[in-house]
């Protein structure tokens, strides 16, 4: 028997072929429930399968661009900033034409219509999490990033925020108060970061480009020159050779 395959305390005989583990797609009880309810609704004519697909396509295509616009507009216009901080839902409607009540008249079932924008200052930094599930301001930022929904981020951010932020590459001095916002009920939150120095004369469009999704969750700070469409590339130190050459060299 191969020595690299030793199970301590496991008495079963290894002198046989291991059958390949079947490829089973993992599905949770909630996914089963969702499919059952959806199929029932379609069967009863509440909506069609195509309606469902179109809604899903629309919901998943909302990106963070409206959030970026909201921040840029607030930076440029103090009166609008005051409205953003006073009534986030109203600011979205008046400043961006974004209606939190869409598409049902009372929002989507788990987004609600209570939106609070948290203002950072040079001595206060906000960061958002939902320890219960994945509450996120979807109407304005779109779907949350995959890591935002992981238990790892959710359980650790409330307890070790500085360590978690450092893992995102954000290290803040102890004088800056870090305020974690655990979004556990019906309010949805977004961060209004501090406008970075050197951007005072930028246009709204230029400013919006540096307010990326992560800046509005609070795991990053906006910086001139750092936009969502340009990402760092680190070339491999030992690039893979063309496979034919590599194969013949090895033999």
């Amino acid at each position: 028997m191969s020595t690299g395959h030793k199970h301590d305390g496991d008495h079963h005989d290894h002198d046989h072929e291991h059958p390949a583990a079947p490829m089973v797609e993992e599905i949770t009880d909630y996914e089963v429930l969702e499919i059952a309810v959806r199929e029932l609704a379609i069967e009863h004519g509440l909506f069609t399968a195509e309606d469902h697909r179109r809604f899903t396509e629309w919901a998943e295509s909302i990106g963070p661009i409206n959030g970026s616009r909201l921040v840029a507009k607030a930076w440029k216009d103090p009166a609008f900033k005051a409205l953003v901080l006073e009534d986030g839902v109203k600011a979205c409607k008046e400043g961006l034409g974004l209606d939190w009540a869409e598409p049902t008249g009372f929002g989507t079932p788990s987004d609600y219509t209570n939106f609070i924008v948290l203002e950072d200052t040079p001595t206060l930094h906000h960061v958002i999490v939902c320890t219960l599930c994945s509450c996120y301001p979807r109407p304005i930022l779109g779907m949350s990033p995959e890591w935002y929904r992981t238990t790892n981020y959710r359980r650790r951010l409330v307890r070790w925020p500085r360590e978690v932020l450092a893992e995102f590459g954000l290290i803040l001095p102890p004088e800056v108060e870090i305020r974690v916002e655990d979004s556990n009920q019906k309010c949805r939150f977004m961060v209004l970061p501090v406008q970075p120095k050197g951007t005072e004369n930028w246009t709204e469009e230029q400013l919006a480009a540096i307010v990326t999704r992560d800046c509005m969750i609070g795991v990053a700070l906006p910086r001139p020159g750092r936009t969502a469409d340009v990402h760092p590339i680190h070339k491999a130190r030992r690039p893979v050779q063309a496979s034919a050459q590599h194969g013949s060299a090895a033999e």
Partner: protein
Amino acid sequence: MKAKSEAPKASHAATRFKVGDRVRVRNMPNMFYTRTQSYVRGVIGTIAACTYKDLIPEEDAFNYDGKVEQYYIVRFRQKDLWEEYPFDNDTLQTESPEHWLEPV
């Protein structure tokens, strides 16, 4: 349930707490659905905002149109939540319906 008879009917009563009030999160048994995290139970914080009135999670979760209550954002010092927390200034906020809070 005791909590139920104690909690004021917010739709008829004035808001119990105001911004700046010190409150303790109650530690009630998890008999039904709740959205009150265990890590804030029994901890003292400060009301940071009065947000909205809505159904309470214990009833909303079962689609029961029951009591409507005032919700609050409560601010805690991280040092009060986690004994070993090393930074004095850091805080955490979370939201709670009225019946989970008691005056200090």
